């Protein structure tokens, strides 16, 4: 309960600081839209040269992309820890975090939230409704609940992977360029995994399970029955990876020895 009230207080402060630089915020939201458009453009251009991608049509691919945007928006609003090592370990900021009364990971989530990224979820929903309409998909009364469950699962998968990577910083404080590339790899979960060879399919399912943020959960709504098992595994995989990440974090914090100032 206390965490919840702290969260809303931080969110309020955050909005105030953001509204100070309004011009920048507008540009940032706009650049987010552009970012989402890039991938859409990729799909559209590619389907200008082919009609089916491993048996999936253009609208299905667009739908998967729309679904992906929703958990990704939640992830990028609250888990901006891609520069954790630079920002907190190298500069010694972690010292300050550890003196705070809430869990250190929660404190970082609070400090680094970027609420404007949530607009991405709106784009995602629009894209899904557009593609779903063209595909003639029907919505049952329980679909919104399943949608919510799968979205949370997907966001946890993303959070789990990126938190785990950030914890490397506790053991080694040197710079890595892994994080930005990881965002790229995350994109491959949006394509039907059967196009990849076994190794990459395995990696995307069980090691860096980005497929659970895109094609697997989306296939439930696309009524691709052969993927249903994977679709319903999404929340489980999300929870497992998130718990691994938190455990790694808790162990890592004990290894933290301060740096900088």
């Amino acid at each position, binding site marked *: 309960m206390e965490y919840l009230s702290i969260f809303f207080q931080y969110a309020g402060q955050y909005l105030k600081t953001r509204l100070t*630089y309004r*011009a*920048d*915020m*507008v*540009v*940032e*939201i*706009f*650049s*987010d839209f*552009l*970012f989402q*458009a*890039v991938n859409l*453009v*990729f799909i559209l*251009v*590619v389907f*200008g*040269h*082919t009609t*089916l*991608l*491993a048996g999936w049509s253009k609208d299905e691919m667009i739908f998967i992309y729309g679904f992906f945007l929703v958990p990704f928006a939640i992830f990028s609003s609250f888990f901006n820890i891609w520069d954790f090592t630079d920002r907190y370990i190298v500069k010694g900021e972690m010292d300050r975090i550890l003196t705070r009364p809430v869990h250190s990971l929660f404190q970082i989530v609070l400090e680094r939230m970027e609420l404007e990224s949530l607009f991405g979820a709106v784009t995602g929903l629009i894209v899904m409704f557009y593609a779903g309409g063209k595909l003639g998909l029907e919505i049952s009364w329980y679909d919104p609940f399943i949608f919510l469950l799968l979205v949370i699962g997907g966001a946890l998968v993303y959070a789990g992977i990126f938190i785990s990577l950030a914890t490397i910083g506790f053991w080694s404080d*040197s*710079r*890595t*360029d*892994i994080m930005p*590339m*990881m965002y*790229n*790899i995350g994109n*491959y979960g949006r*394509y*039907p995994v059967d*196009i*990849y*060879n076994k190794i*990459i399919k395995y*990696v995307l399912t069980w090691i860096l399970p980005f497929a659970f943020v895109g094609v697997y959960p989306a296939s439930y709504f696309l009524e691709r029955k052969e993927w249903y098992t994977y679709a319903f595994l999404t929340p489980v995989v999300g929870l497992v990876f998130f718990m691994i990440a938190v455990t790694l974090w808790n162990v890592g914090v004990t290894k933290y020895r301060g740096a900088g100032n």
Partner: protein
Amino acid sequence: MGKYIEMIRIRFLMMLAYRTNYYSGILIYSINIGAYYFLWSAIYGGKENIQGLSITQMTTYIAVAWMARAFYFNNIDREIAMEIKEGKVAIEMVRPYPYLNMKMMQGLGEGIFRLLFFSVPGMVIVALVFPVELSANAGTWIYFFISIGFSFIINTQINLLAGIATFFLFNNDGLIRAKRVVIDLFSGLILPLSFYPMWAQNIMSYLPFQGISYIPSMIFTEGFKGSQVFEALINQAVWSAILIIPVYVLWILAKRQLVVQGG
């Protein structure tokens, strides 16, 4: 000249201190290129070629585009923005060398480091695993290296513009991100420009972005033939020269605009 070489050297050595991490980066890059390869195989789905590029050429294109990116890519726009926000830029501006040139040289030091320790070993690994075609023609390699030199200049000039914009906007993370998206899309990094519909290609041919990724990658894959190569290189050279103007104009305006808050 000597001082610039020294700047390049120092940045190079700074990067060298962190080199072990780059080996993990190579692995990630390889996975990235691998996934792209399978994605494109599925897109080709048995077709011989699309827009004049065979699947092998396409794989080579993707591989070289990403490896070349390691050379021309830098974060000097963020660095400039940071120095302006923290007020450090005032100190930098009284130093006995032009600030922008120094930033460019630092970027070059970083680029050379990544080219040697990242792109070259990365390309070797990728060439072993995936059907990448490396040209045996010495000319192709020479033109390619000239071309990525221009890529670096054009990309850096655009980064300088985005960085200097901080003087006017104070906080320009949004602009920097928007710039990145535009470059990803219009430079030909994720898709060769010849895949776009005609009207889009026409617009892009008037923009400098194709000089960043599309031109060097097409030269490398030998998608450009004969006079096309020279036309492409001239296009890059012209843009490298033209972009000097906005950089300097903006810089002169920015110096008048300078507000240092603390520092």
